[in-house]
């Protein structure tokens, strides 16, 4: 019994310590953004990497998400004779929930894993140590630009996701299944409020912070060679994805 209690205590301490380190990491990254702002070119490169290079995967997943929504909702709403609100239902599902969450999960898989691997390799090949020996701040080059870029790119990708998804729903609900095209968009105009739009934007900004924070942290603290980097990458993707979903729940309950 004592052994079990001791083990639980050890695990709790380990968890709290790790959480403390992670929070310190985030706070220091924010401090570096203010105290040692990097060159704009570093941020632009990261926006290109996290944002522009994710466009294709976002476009593809948004199209099919919108199409599936159009298909599912059309038949469900038809049962109640409410297919006229298809546009509103698709738009609200995407803008409030699916757009921010799914675009963040896609970016985690595509860019987050690459961020962890890149920083992890720099760690194990002593490139981060080399920066430190030059009296340069590694966070200025490796962490802070990614954090800023994720905060800029995620809302943009989320907006693209929403628009593409809405048109995906339109193609299926209106063009393929014969819904009313006027009702699809006019319902959206009256029922989608600014509050819905900015709650989606707030979500995607916070998801951007989560992705950059977790993925940079895991890479920065990678050890034990290639296997360590691979472990860190897996952990970063899993942890970011889970945290996005948990944070989404809390944020939704506050913003609704």
């Amino acid at each position, binding site marked *: 019994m004592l052994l079990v209690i001791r083990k639980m205590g050890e695990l709790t301490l380990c968890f709290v310590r790790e959480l403390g380190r992670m929070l310190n990491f985030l706070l220091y990254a924010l401090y570096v953004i203010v105290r040692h702002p990097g060159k704009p070119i570093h941020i632009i490169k990261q926006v290109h990497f996290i944002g522009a290079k994710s466009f294709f995967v976002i476009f593809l997943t948004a199209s099919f998400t919108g199409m599936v929504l159009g298909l599912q909702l059309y038949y469900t709403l038809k049962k109640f004779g409410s297919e006229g609100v298809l546009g509103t239902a698709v738009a609200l599902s995407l803008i409030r929930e699916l757009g921010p969450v799914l675009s963040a999960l896609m970016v985690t898989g595509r860019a987050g894993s690459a961020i962890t691997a890149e920083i992890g*390799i*720099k760690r194990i*090949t*002593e*490139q981060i*140590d*080399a920066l*430190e*020996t*030059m*009296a*340069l*701040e590694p966070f200025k080059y490796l962490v802070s630009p990614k954090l800023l870029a994720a905060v800029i790119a995620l809302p943009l990708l989320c907006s693209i996701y929403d628009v593409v998804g809405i048109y995906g729903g339109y193609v299926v609900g209106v063009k393929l299944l014969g819904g009313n095209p006027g009702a699809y968009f006019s319902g959206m105009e009256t029922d989608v409020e600014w509050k819905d739009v900015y709650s989606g934007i707030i979500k995607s900004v916070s998801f951007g912070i989560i992705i950059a924070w977790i993925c940079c942290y895991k890479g920065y603290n990678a050890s034990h060679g290639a296997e360590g980097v691979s472990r860190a990458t897996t952990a970063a993707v899993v942890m970011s994805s889970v945290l996005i979903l948990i944070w989404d729940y809390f944020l939704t309950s506050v913003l609704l």
Partner: protein
Amino acid sequence: MIELHDVVKSFDGQAVLDHLSLAVPKGLITAVIGPSGEGKSVLLKHMIGLMRPRSGRVMVDGEDITHLGREALNRVREKFGMLFQNAALFDSMTVFENVAFPLEEKTKLSRGEIRDRVHEALEHVGLKGVDRKYPDELSGGMKKRVGLARALLLNPQIILFDEPTTGLDPIIGRAIHQLIKDTHARYGFTAVIVSHEIPEIYDISDQVAMLYRGKIVEMGTPEEIQRSTDPVVRQFISGSLEGPIHLV
């Protein structure tokens, strides 16, 4: 001058540096020799604050760096240059960008001045026409030369060399040693070289320290080390299998 007083460092409960004390005199080349896995690189990383001791003190030019914050530590690190075991070149940058990086980030030199300084540094280490190559297109010896050019560029007062010739053939290894000797004669920096290249290291060092089981077991001029009667030192420099040093 770098001084380590009673430094203790352990990993997973195993002491790597065990109440180690060492003084590195200014302007001289000090070699740290010892069997693999004895903590020579760990010792070097303590000197520049990349690692912190569990107890003891690390002093650089009379300043205790053991508990310095990041910014104060960076101020001390301005005095240092370091050549890593695998050169630690930035893999996404070309040779030119690697060498130019510290100048671009820490000075206000014009592009033309940076270009001239980089070319001069690369020529000095015997490299020409490799500006546009990436680190993975270079041989081990070339990488070390680029690393040395980068370390020398800001004229540091102290340069730390972590096994500068490991993994190189004897001719390239000798060339790197000669390069260190020549640049030291030219710039007069304090150097600490971690190595197990015996007897080559005697040719370039002013003093040699033998690290074993977390302690400096002997320190002296290369001649004194070669005449040492300490059984650990004798076994190590002769490369004998018989003696107090056991293969793990």
